[in-house]
């Protein structure tokens, strides 16, 4: 439905400004939502989005609309937006380069078929039945397909397809809850296992025991670690935050900031990763970047504007997310790795499956205090008594220095890929 529209916009816009960039996004999805064990909602969605960005004398403006037919008023607003913005030293939009290869986040076997969504729901429920004392509260499954077209006045016309498959289940046993989900670009999620895990967590976390306030070794599940650490670390690595004085990691390039075996990578080519892509939101080819290598901070994340402004190169991390569909800085797939432990739950530790309130952490300093969810005393990798309630307090950046090792098997949590993480000396308030 966009055929040719991008050429019209670029041609018209170039009569007024130096450069024009157009992104067209089209998506469709189907989903089924369970209420308790019953399919209650069956949904379909159809969406389009048009984002126009213009650059004139180093001033960048943008606007977006869900009605591509009205692109002229969207372009007018983008131009008005540029008139107001502060000029930056701008070196131009990227031109085209060959980007060969199969799509990275697209599985042609993903179909928008409600019958398949329904069979996923049935598998979720069958999985949950393995723990009959847990009651299913809700859940669901869905599939989506989207296409992105990115074109600019430097000659780029890139096209990419994405698919996404997701399923989740929530269960309760007495006053103990369990939640599990998975989302992938490929048809490789296991709804039966998702249902079983949710029901197992709810059943197993009943009859929690009180715990004594003190310092403990912890084993974080991938889910708990990702929700505590990923967005805070991403914000601290954001080049704009770094240069404008809002990052804890500013000025620490080349310094040891974490355990000596921690490596954090942005891998835009990760197979099946939800964030996998060959080009970023402004058409810069992506590449694999070590952000932290063996505990040493090795790179920040940049888009073009921030890179031009501070005399460095874009790392291909532009993402749509700013106001008016403007460009922000993001991570594609955030991969955590450290020395693998055959048994990360060895000795005595507290296993933490999830936390409540991760988003309330201090985004600047990394200080947090959150409530633990589905946590257990653990001995030599075996779960013991569940913990009734406890608050976990600490600092994300200090915590990166207390990582002892990681389990063998990573899992994906959105676009974060991380194994279970063993951390020493953390404070729990019982």
């Amino acid at each position, binding site marked *: 439905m966009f055929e040719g529209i991008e050429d019209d916009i670029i041609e018209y816009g170039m009569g007024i400004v130096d450069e024009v960039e157009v992104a067209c996004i089209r998506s469709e999805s189907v989903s089924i939502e369970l209420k308790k064990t019953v399919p209650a909602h069956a949904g379909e969605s159809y969406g389009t989005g048009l984002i126009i960005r213009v650059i004139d004398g180093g001033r960048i403006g943008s606007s977006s*609309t869900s009605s591509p037919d009205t692109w002229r008023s969207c372009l007018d607003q983008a131009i008005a937006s540029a008139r107001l913005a502060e000029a930056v030293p701008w070196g131009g939009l990227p031109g085209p380069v060959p980007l060969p290869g199969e799509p990275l986040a697209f599985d042609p076997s993903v179909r928008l078929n409600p019958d398949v969504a329904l069979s996923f729901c049935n598998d979720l429920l069958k999985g949950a039945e393995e723990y009959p004392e847990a009651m299913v509260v809700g859940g669901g499954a869905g599939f989506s397909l989207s296409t992105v077209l990115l074109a600019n006045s430097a000659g780029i016309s890139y096209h990419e397809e994405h698919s996404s498959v997701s399923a989740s289940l929530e269960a309760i046993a007495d006053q103990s809850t369990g939640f599990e989900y998975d989302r992938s670009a490929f048809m490789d999620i296991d709804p039966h296992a998702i249902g079983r895990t949710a029901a197992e967590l709810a059943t197993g976390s009943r009859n929690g025991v009180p715990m004594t306030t003190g310092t403990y070794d912890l084993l974080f599940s991938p889910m708990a670690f990702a929700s505590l650490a990923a967005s805070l670390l991403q914000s601290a690595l954001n080049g704009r935050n770094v240069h404008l004085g809002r990052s804890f990691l500013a000025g620490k390039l080349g310094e040891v900031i974490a355990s000596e075996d921690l490596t954090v990578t942005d891998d835009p080519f990760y197979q099946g990763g939800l964030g996998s892509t060959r080009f970023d939101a402004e058409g810069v080819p992506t590449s694999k970047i070590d952000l932290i290598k063996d505990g040493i901070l090795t790179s920040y994340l940049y888009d073009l504007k921030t890179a031009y402004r501070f005399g460095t190169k874009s790392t291909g991390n532009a993402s749509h997310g700013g106001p008016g569909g403007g460009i922000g800085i993001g991570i594609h797939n955030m991969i955590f790795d450290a020395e693998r432990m055959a048994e990360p739950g060895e000795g005595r530790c507290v296993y933490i499956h999830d936390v409540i309130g991760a988003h309330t952490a201090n985004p600047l300093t990394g200080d947090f205090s959150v409530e633990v969810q589905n946590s257990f005393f653990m001995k030599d990798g075996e779960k013991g008594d569940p913990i009734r309630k406890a608050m976990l307090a600490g600092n994300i950046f200090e915590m990166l220095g207390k990582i002892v090792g990681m389990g063998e098997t990573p899992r994906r949590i959105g676009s974060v890929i991380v194994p279970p993480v063993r951390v020493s000396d953390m404070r729990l308030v019982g």
Partner: protein
Amino acid sequence: MDTNLRYWDLRYVSGEHTGIDIDNRDIEAAGVSFFSKAVIRALGPKGWGIVTVSPFDPDDRASLSAYLSRAEKAAVVTREDVVLADAENRKPLPVPSMKEDPREVSLEEKAALLMEITQAASLPGITSTRGTYTERNETVFFLDSTGYETSHTICRSGFSVMAVAKRNGMMEMGYVRDHTIDGLNIRHRGSDGEKAGKRAVALLDAKKPKGGRMRAVLDPELGGVFAHEAVGHASEGDLVKEGASVLGNRIGEAIGSPVVTIIDDPTLRSFGFEPIDAEGIGGARTAIIEGGILKRYIHSRETLAAVGSGDAGHARAMPGNVPIVRMSNTFIAEGDASYDEIVEECRDGILLAGSRGGQVDPGRGVFQFNAEYGYLIEGGELKEMVKDVSLSGEILQTLHTIALCGNDLRMHPGYCGKGGQSVPVSDGSPHLLLEEAIIGGSGDV
């Protein structure tokens, strides 16, 4: 429309969004974007078929008819026996008039006003400032299979200002925000920028508390978050219906001390105001807890029919999303204690103020929320400033520990997330004294 459906409705929202982002005295981005989104719900013999579509043209009845057919077809796989409560109150409230309509102020002027606020945050010791302005004008059109039709236009706007202070490698931030339905709120607000700057500098000298069980005083902003997280979510009819709330089957039970009354009121002129809910039902002031007794849940038509006890008119939705049961303006009613009495009665404990948000697991009945700052209370007086402190508790126990409610209720605007949708809300409370609270902290004071 000629269908075999028991019921259908259309909610179409269109409008524009204005955003301005000022970073260290530079206008980073400023502009206007447009949206046009519809959600069409169709009730088949059993459950809902739902189509969301963007863009949408409400005057194109042929495409509405086509989407309804799709929704009807989708509903075939559903098995839930959905029943809707009668639509009683269908009279929309007038949208309150604005003191100054932001749509009549140019983008340039708004940017200049935001610049004043942001620059006022640049006090000695401040190394970074950021100001953002957001404005959303939306026109909501609602139509259902009974022929009922309503529409309204509402403008929500506001700003936030953030300041970072740095000293000897230490960094802290101060943050002030205000959002409203009352019209442009960024004139003469330099004092808010200054407040953000002063807070950031003061926090450099604040200590981290060590945490544990203690008496706590909550300020009105945090008390509001407490009402929202500890009670509001668990009283949502959908969670009660699905067995996911510890407040299920407890109507008539004393779940809090007799001083506690908690109300959700979408008709209140505050940031969560709705002229009519997302199902075309007039809002109701719902007293969830009165004198410590659980009295009512908040509901949609569907959850009211399934659960009872309470009021419909609490369904809300983001543009292009399915309506779900949501809070609007949630608050703890005033008591008669003065602020001084509350701090004195606390004797030894902690005062928590400002909010960085919270979260609840309503099924487990455990909540958590975080304060921006606080003060230790010793001998009935405020002492040392503390930072990065949060509170968690169990819903069924914590409300019993509220010993005093102040006489100084204030509402604070914000956004609440549920089911992937974020909607504008306000929360409020007077100052509160909790006899025992679990405070999380990693420090040693």
